[in-house]
């Protein structure tokens, strides 16, 4: 394991400190008891894949290595550099959280993996190596082989992501029938088992999406994502549209499935508490670039990048020693013409002369990758804390 601290342990410490989160715990316990009765009908560990690996796959290669990925959007008014040189790695059984403000490119990054992008988006550079196979080089037709069978997606709004005129069970069975080549009957049976697995009674599979509650729909969406037993599941803000209680249930379900099935998970969210609770590593993105990446424990406890610090203090219940919410003045840059140096420079309280001229290189300290001129190559990489209240004019109360 690459991560020294158990993220769940961290999450629990936070819960203890912040009593508002106590509900989460209760819900989790309830869900765990419920889950004990759920039969395991799917392979429960890595290496027990039911379906053969892709022909060109190299079993010794890491699961997913993304390097210098660049995905741009063509607009009439110019090229939007939505994802501009993003690199990361995902190992078997690992959960990576990608966080950042809306429009920072986190969703585009994830959807670029299997090219589920609007027609005006184009991946202009970089590589995406899934088990050693570069997906960027694949033609649209060849890439289809990897969609859902290797990388599936749990979309944000299940209400819209599910087809309103097809029964839920048939929507789950569809990829099984058409991608794995099972008979219609067998596909439906398996779809029923998947529904069971995510805690929906088999019978409810007959329902249309609008007949299910929000939480049920999201569970169905998860069942659908598991249909082809994929190597990686991407959760694109899977809980954002749900209320808090249901959110917790869905997160626990994902967590349990991950442990049971050995899933590798990429979780995209703007909600840092979600990442704290369910991810091993976190990647903070800003304006199409990686600001900071590392284990959840280290990044959340000792944020280095000024943006990460700001982001953490802008969220309640995460930073234990802060009570009031911090805000980040200004707004993200126009990605049609990004600023020449660091993209956060215009909003950064630490801005230096070099920041608006030179793009900060990504440097690594104790497994933490950070792109900021405060931490040049060869420095000790000790976190420099952002001055809070005074610098931005927000009154905060320090609780020691």
């Amino acid at each position, binding site marked *: 394991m690459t991560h020294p601290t158990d993220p769940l342990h961290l999450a629990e410490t936070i819960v203890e400190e912040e009593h508002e989160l106590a509900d989460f715990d209760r819900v989790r316990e309830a869900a765990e008891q419920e889950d004990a009765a759920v039969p395991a009908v799917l392979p429960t560990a890595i290496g027990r894949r039911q379906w053969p690996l892709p022909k060109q796959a190299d079993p010794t290669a890491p699961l997913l290595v993304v390097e210098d990925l660049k995905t741009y959007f063509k607009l009439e008014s110019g090229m939007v550099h939505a994802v501009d040189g993003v690199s990361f790695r995902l190992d078997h059984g690992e959960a990576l959280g990608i966080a950042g403000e809306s429009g920072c490119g986190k969703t585009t990054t994830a959807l670029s993996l299997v090219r589920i992008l609007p027609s005006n988006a184009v991946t202009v550079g970089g590589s995406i190596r899934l088990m050693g196979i570069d997906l960027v080089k694949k033609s649209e037709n060849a890439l289809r082989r990897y969609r859902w069978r290797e990388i599936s997606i749990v979309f944000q709004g299940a209400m819209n*992501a599910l087809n309103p*005129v097809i029964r839920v069970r048939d929507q789950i069975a*569809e990829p099984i029938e058409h991608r794995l080549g099972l008979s219609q009957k067998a596909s439906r049976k398996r779809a029923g088992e998947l529904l069971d697995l995510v805690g929906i009674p088999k019978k409810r599979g007959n329902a249309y999406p*609008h007949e299910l509650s929000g939480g049920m729909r999201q569970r169905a969406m998860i069942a659908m994502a598991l249909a082809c037993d994929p190597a990686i599941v991407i959760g694109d803000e899977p809980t954002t549209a749900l209320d808090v209680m249901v959110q917790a249930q869905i997160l626990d379900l994902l967590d349990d499935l991950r442990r049971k099935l050995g899933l590798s998970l990429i979780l995209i969210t703007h909600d840092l508490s979600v990442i704290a609770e369910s991810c091993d590593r976190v990647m903070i993105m800003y304006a199409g670039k990686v600001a900071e990446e590392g284990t959840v424990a280290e990044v959340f406890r000792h944020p280095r990048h000024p943006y990460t610090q700001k982001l953490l203090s802008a969220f309640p219940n995460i930073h234990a020693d802060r009570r009031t919410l911090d805000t980040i003045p200004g707004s993200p840059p126009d990605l049609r013409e990004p600023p020449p140096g660091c993209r956060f420079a215009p909003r950064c309280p630490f801005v230096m002369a070099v920041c608006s001229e030179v793009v900060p290189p990504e440097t690594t300290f104790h497994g933490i990758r950070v792109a900021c001129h405060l931490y040049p190559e060869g420095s000790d990489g000790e976190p420099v804390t952002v001055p809070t209240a005074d610098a931005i004019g927000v009154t905060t109360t320090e609780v020691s």
Partner: protein
Amino acid sequence: MGTRYFGRKLTGALITIVLIVLFNFFLFRMMPGSPERALARNPHIQASVLAETRARWGLDKPLFPDQFLAYVAATTQGDLGYSLKFEGQTVVDVLATHFWPTVILFGVGEVLAAIIGLALGAYTGWRRGGPIDLVGNAFSLILYSMPYFVIGMLLLVVFATGLRWFPTSGMLSLGASHASPIDVFVDFLAHFTLPVATVAIGLIGQYSILMRSSVIETLSEDYVTTARAKGLTDGRTLRSHVLPNALLPAVTLIAINLGYVVAGAITVEIVFNWPGLGTLTVDALSSRDYSVLQGSFLLLSITVVFANLAADFLYALLDPRVKA
């Protein structure tokens, strides 16, 4: 299907029909050339004759409730009065003989237009922005801008008088003696081709534009992205996810349209002298056969109401979300 939905729609339709009957009553009391007005305009008419005529037609009674109730009672019993032009025939009989030619013409025309128009619209919408879409959409827009009679006249000029492939008017050749039913059918088809082509061509543009925008709208839906993410082929995504949803508004609008088409495309019948309701209506106007005019107005309005109702039910049948 939920009975509440069914009931609500049915009630709405009934109210509209009541309003139409009401409107019809007052509209035709205002028509020039009614017996009362015709008599009143004659300066030599004696007051006693006028009074007698008024009594005979029931016009001496107050408009409401007596005249109105008599009218409503007759109308609900299917008594729409007698035709002036077709002497001795009831309006209902006259309407009935002209009903079927119209139904055949527009029924077949609608089906052809729906098949071709929806297919064209689905294809151009799916390939939006491509060369076929550009040409197909321009073609649809031009057809959409053509009134039926313009299409009909152009077809007549080219195929009937120019190439002499088809006869110019009527439903069957006048005075021809047909040896067998097959000959009758062949004769009918020869007369039928151009009018039905006119109706179909007039509707294709409209349906194609409608379907195209519906497909484009559906393509932007999240569940289509889901289908792509599932790695389904384009064909399967189109067939199972785009079309079933895109067809919903299109089919509904076609059903609604069914009612208007008959009323709106009466010019086709005039151009080809097709013995249907349109020709009947225009003839009734020029011969001041108001009872027939009133009857056809009632028939056509109520057809539209029922077409709307059918569309609502069709929608409920096709879309699982409409059931409450």
